[in-house]
């Protein structure tokens, strides 16, 4: 309660959102600037986890209940996203392996196959 009463120490929704925004931007910037494919994957993970933080935070601060029991939709959704991220990571890593086989590198600048 002490903690919650101190404005300085009180961690509210804004903090979560700011953390999430920060993580999101970090992830985004990582995706934009990293030439290493693994790095880009890391950026993607950051973006997804930023979204997860948002989901959990929103669920925590919405106080939604059903029949007296708190609803955990956000958390469940976050778990889904984590599972999704794992699946996505495995697909992405498989792509990178092939990519490495073809180009002997994982520098995404070297791949121009998508050029129209």
């Amino acid at each position, binding site marked *: 309660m002490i903690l919650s009463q101190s404005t300085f120490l009180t961690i509210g929704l804004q903090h979560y959102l700011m953390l999430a925004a920060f993580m999101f931007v970090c992830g*985004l910037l990582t*995706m*934009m*600037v*990293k*030439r290493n494919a693994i790095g*880009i994957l890391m950026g993607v993970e950051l973006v997804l986890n930023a979204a997860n933080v948002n989901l959990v935070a929103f669920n925590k601060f919405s106080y939604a209940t059903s029949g007296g029991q708190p609803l955990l939709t956000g958390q469940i959704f976050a778990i889904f996203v984590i599972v999704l991220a794992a699946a996505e990571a495995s697909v992405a890593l498989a792509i990178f392996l092939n990519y490495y086989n073809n180009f002997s590198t994982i520098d*995404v*600048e070297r*791949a*121009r*196959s*998508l*050029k*129209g």
Partner: protein
Amino acid sequence: MPLPALLLILATLLPLVSFVILMFMGKRMGNPLAGYVGTSMIGGSFICSILAMIFWLGGGKYQDGIHGRLLDYGAGIGPINLPMRWVPVGSGIAQDHPGYLDVGVFVDSLTILMFAMITLVATLVHVFSIAYMHEDKRFPRFFTYLGLFCFSMLGLVIGGTALHLFIFWELVGLCSYLLIGFWYEKKSASNAAIKAFVTNRVGDFGFLIGFGILFYHVGNVSLPNLWALLGSAGNGHPITLPGGVVFSTTMLTVMGIGLFFGAVGKSAQFPLHVWLPDAMEGPTPVSALIHAATMVAAGVYLVGRIFPILTPDARLFIAIIGLVTLTMAALIAVAQSDIKKVLAFSTLSQLGYMIMAMGIGSWVGALFHLITHAFFKALLFLGSGSVIHAAHHEQEMPQYGGLLRKIPVTGITFGIAVLAIAGTPLMSGFFSKDLILHHAAAFATLATEEGRSKYYWLFFIVPTIIAYVTAFYMTRCWMLTFWGKPRNQHLYDHAHESPVLYVPLCVLAFFSIFGGYYVVPQFLKNSIIEAKSYVQRTDPQFSGFDQAWPIAATESGSAAEGTDEKKPVAHAHISASEEAFEKSESHVARFTSFLFYGFVGGIGSGFLLYRNGYSIATKLHSTKPLGWIHTWLYRRMYFDELYSAVFVAIVMGLSRFLAFFDKYVVDGIVNLAGWSVKGASSFAGLTDKYVVDGAVNGMATLSQGLGSIVRAPQTGRVRMYVTVLMVAVALGLAGAIIVVLSH
């Protein structure tokens, strides 16, 4: 099927078997074997023919195919008539089975006789050919063709309907073409073959016209039924057919002359005689078999078969053609220097005798002469073949002389044939030619007694004179070849003969001497009786082959007008002709003796004139008019030149005109069309190039431009995409915020 017919069919098919065997295996069999196969097959035919003759003399009964009745056959009893249905072609008006193109077998004494003669001569010619063609590189093919020819010729003789005759008629023409052109490397031989074929086509066209008229009126009935239907044509009256259709005299005459034109082509009568001398380009055995003994006689045989349906006018026409041919050919033969050409013109002349005999109504005389002529002319040709073989294929008589010492058997047998054709008494040729002249005299006598033109005597006088000429030119031929001093010493020294060559000559010499006694005329008379016995079942008026002379018929025909038609006709022409014939016997006795001295004169003058080779003849040629006549005759009266000047020139002119027309008019039109199409298409091409292609290319350029604009942002760089995506989302969000806030 009755035994004689069966044997004759077997005899017909054996050469076909030989043809088929040699066609497929001849080359493998090689030089002598192919000849043995062909010879044994035709020898088998000969044996079958002789057996058929024996059974024929025995006679018997057979089932008539159409009416199912049991009929007698045999020598002097009745013929065997077995028509077979072949192609149904609508309906005709015949009483036999109408509307069918039938073939079939007809056997009477004449058929038996022809079979015996043809197979005998053919067998001898085959034997002769084995030696004569020994060195030829196409030896097996020669026997292949001979087999086909023998099959065709026998098929022709056994034929029981006009169509059947015509089919085999064409087949023998084909064989003649193949064998004349056997040495086709020689341009002259190949030309002669074509000439023979084309000339025969002209005649066959006439035959087809005649057959067409015949078929239209009565259909293609078997021979005796044809005689029964049209047997009264000799009266010169229109014939009312069973269906009620009237067959007019004009049509009958046209039909007769049309059918006769086939014979004109095949028997090489004036004006289609030009092919036969050229046909001598073929191997000599072929000349003996086809162009002397059998095929050329087929024309006479045909006229003999259709004899009862010829009108008086048609018969007169036939007689005139025969008369012209026999005169012309005999005169030309006098001046020829090539031994085979002499024989060729002699054949023409003798065929002229036969045709003329047919025309004046001497059926027996014509066919009798056909048989005897076949023997002695085959002998002459084979003899000339032996001479040519001895002389290393030299055919010009100026190169011969004195060959009797070197090739005595050939010389003697050739001499026998010369005596036979000259009509020396007691030889075969005497009886047959004498019979023809005999009947010609009767014919002329009858004409005179009926108050006809005196010119009918030409039918007797001219052949009699020509009989002297025949004796003369044949003696000349023999003298120049076998007598006197050798004119070519080298050729003389190398001359020789062999038994294979002269054994056939001896056999033929036997028949040339004895062929005129009893058997042949008896067979022919039997044939007449058989035809009568068959036809008179349905047509009691039928008088058959010994029917009236045409003149008598015409006379009685015109006398009968207005009165009862049938009785006077039947009375007048048969009895009148017989009476006239009997009356003429006294004249005939005188003419016969006249003839006898004539033969002596002909042979004697020939002997005297040529006893020293050409020395006297050369002197005679130097006197002007005789020299001119000689040249005229030597060049065959310029018939070839005349034909090439008239017919060939017309055809060539026409073809040149057509070529010109083709080149400038037809080609012009085609070229114009081509040119205009070309112009139109070049215009269309321009349109295509600039309008259609322009549109398509424009579209392509447009899409390409658009595409290059659109593809510019597609850099393929993933980071770029992410950046753009972010910027776009950010801008979108910013826009959305602005829009929301501005409200």
